[in-house]
């Protein structure tokens, strides 16, 4: 009995890493599915929009140029999605007493974002290991350029979400502030949803 189970465990253990690595091959599907679900939940909470909240509308300056170059690298997109996931989860996890929506919807959104965060984190680790093998093939200049692009994208996104967080603080996490933040984050998800297709090698319609 025991030897049989041990063999089975060893057999699964040998292939579990391969299974996990295969999971990252479906990254575009996973991210797209999670993003669409979050957008649906946020849409259900955005309407109706209160008239009084019209005065609290603010332009947060979504960074649309971070993936506008001609040939976006797949790993850069992964990095972008990873940052977006972390920042959105950070926003939805603080001062949600006046959250403009159902509590269960908020819980579901945080759960989806947490799961996506771990998933992207695992995939990025695997990419780093693969990059070490091919790093010697790249020139120093190419590596420096790629790092700059990634850093620029990360800074832009962090600044965008920082403005959202500051807005909430200024509005004291009011109902209207949450309404506007919900709509803005939904807009961010919709914008970057198009880039999930790049994860699978598909074209993106701008």
């Amino acid at each position, binding site marked *: 009995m025991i030897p049989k189970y041990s063999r089975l465990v060893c057999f699964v253990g040998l292939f579990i890493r391969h299974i996990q690595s295969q999971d990252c091959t479906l990254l575009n599907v996973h991210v797209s599915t999670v993003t*669409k679900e979050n957008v649906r939940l946020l849409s259900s909470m955005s309407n*109706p929009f209160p008239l009084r909240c019209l005065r609290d509308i603010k332009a947060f300056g*979504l960074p649309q140029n971070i993936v506008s170059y001609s040939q976006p690298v797949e790993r850069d997109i992964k990095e972008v999605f990873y940052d977006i996931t972390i920042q959105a989860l950070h926003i939805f996890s603080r001062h949600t007493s006046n959250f403009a929506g159902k509590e269960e919807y908020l819980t579901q959104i945080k759960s989806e974002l947490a799961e996506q965060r771990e998933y992207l984190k695992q995939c990025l680790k695997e990419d780093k290991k693969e990059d070490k093998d091919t790093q010697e093939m790249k020139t120093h200049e190419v590596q420096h350029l790629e790092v700059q692009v990634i850093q620029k994208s990360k800074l832009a996104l962090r600044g965008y979400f920082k403005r959202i967080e500051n807005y909430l603080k200024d509005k004291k996490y009011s109902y209207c502030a949450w309404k*506007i933040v919900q709509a*803005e984050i*939904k*807009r961010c998800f919709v914008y970057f949803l198009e880039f999930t297709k790049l994860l699978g090698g598909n074209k993106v319609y701008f």
Partner: protein
Amino acid sequence: MLLSHQAPALGLLSLCLMVYVSLALNTSHNTPESAAEKCNFKMTFRKYRLILSWELKNRSVVPTYYTFGYTIMSKREGMKTVENCTNITRSFCDLTDVWQDMPETYIPMVKGFRGETLLVLCLAAITNLDLSFQPPDFRIVGYADHINVSVQFPPVAPKIYGEELHRHASLIIEEHSEDIDKRHEPKISGSFSGNFSYVINNLIPNTNYCVSVYFEPRNSRIVIKPPLKCVLLQLPQESGSSKSIKIIVFIVIFISVAISIILILKQIGYVCLHTEFPKALIFRNFVVQIFPERPLSEEVNMLEVISVHRKKKVWDYNYDDESDTEDEAPLRTNARGYTMHGLTGRLLSQFRPSSASSQASHPEDPADEESEEPDKETEPLFQPLAAQGPSPGQREGPRERAEGLPHNRSPKDDDSNSTGGSGDKITFNVDLNSVFLRALHDDAEDSEEAALVLPPQEEDPQETESSLLVPHGKKLQVLFPSLPPGCLWTGGDLSDKSDTTSSGADDDVRDGYIMR
């Protein structure tokens, strides 16, 4: 004192008034918000137009006209009005060329009035993910094994949020049958404009298929499917005739192949085909059997054979002429050794049909004829009894003579002959070997009896010839194989007119005579 007692009442009253006023103000302040919660907005791509429609939750409130405006979330801009959607009675607004930024969040505002009174105020935050696509108009035409699906697009490709339709949604064609559901996503090059046709192939005839055509958004889960359109695939009526043609062609090919195989086998020699059909397959025989032909009429002459006992004259190798009466046939012999005797007879009657009585022997040629054609003398001896008219070998002479009835020189016969006699006498020799007895229809029994009942031969010392069964040529026929050799006509002298009594009976058969 009066004022001191009224001060608490006045304070209480002012407090109530303040509460009432504040409540009234809050209510009036919240009216737009509450009114905004009473609308349901719906963003739809309908007939290739971007249509925003609204519906009041409280249907008891019916405004007389609406005013539509919108703003963008990311821009601190005031409300923008839409020209075609101001003071409208309909509850929708066409924003195809108005909203052109896809990632933006638009905030539409709808005000409902009855006269000058604002009854309802509705706001929403709408993105392209809230967009639903109405299915396009399509037609299906069913054939034997395929369906032609036609989708009608507008002449000019519409734009949604400033982009082509195919960037927002895919055209999906679903095929449903009893057991199979298939999904087709045709690749459309360019934009959705003009009429689009798609053929669903490899379908099963005589099967009911249902088709559905709709748009599937790329970023939204809102899918609107139309009612199914069904068609029963039937074979065209012309296929029946084509089937019959196919059957005919197959039969022709089969027959040709069979014939070719038979011919090949014949060439090889495996099959031998008879050129002559067996008698059973001759149709004429069938006809003859069904409708038996009446036998040809035969010229049958009735002959009365008169036996004349004559002494057989033996030739003494004397070539001197011997006296001979004209009635007496010259005693002669032929090469075969026969002793020829003549018989005189007289034709009783001449019958055309073959129902004659038993016949006598075939007449022999007389001597005069013998000299001319000695070879032919043999033939009459071996010819059948019933002369069927003139045979090729016969001449008119014998026929003429055959017409005459062999006349019995006996007085009895003479008497009988004299009754009809015209004086015509026919003399001929009869070779009993060549005598055929043919069973006639009427006298069949008699003829048979005559054939069978033959007395034994009486020995005659002067008989020089004991056998008539002499094979001669090819026409030898053993007429009476059962007859003893003695049953021969020894004959007598024709000149002797007397007829012995021993052979007087006409019906007796003695000494080889066939007596009548």
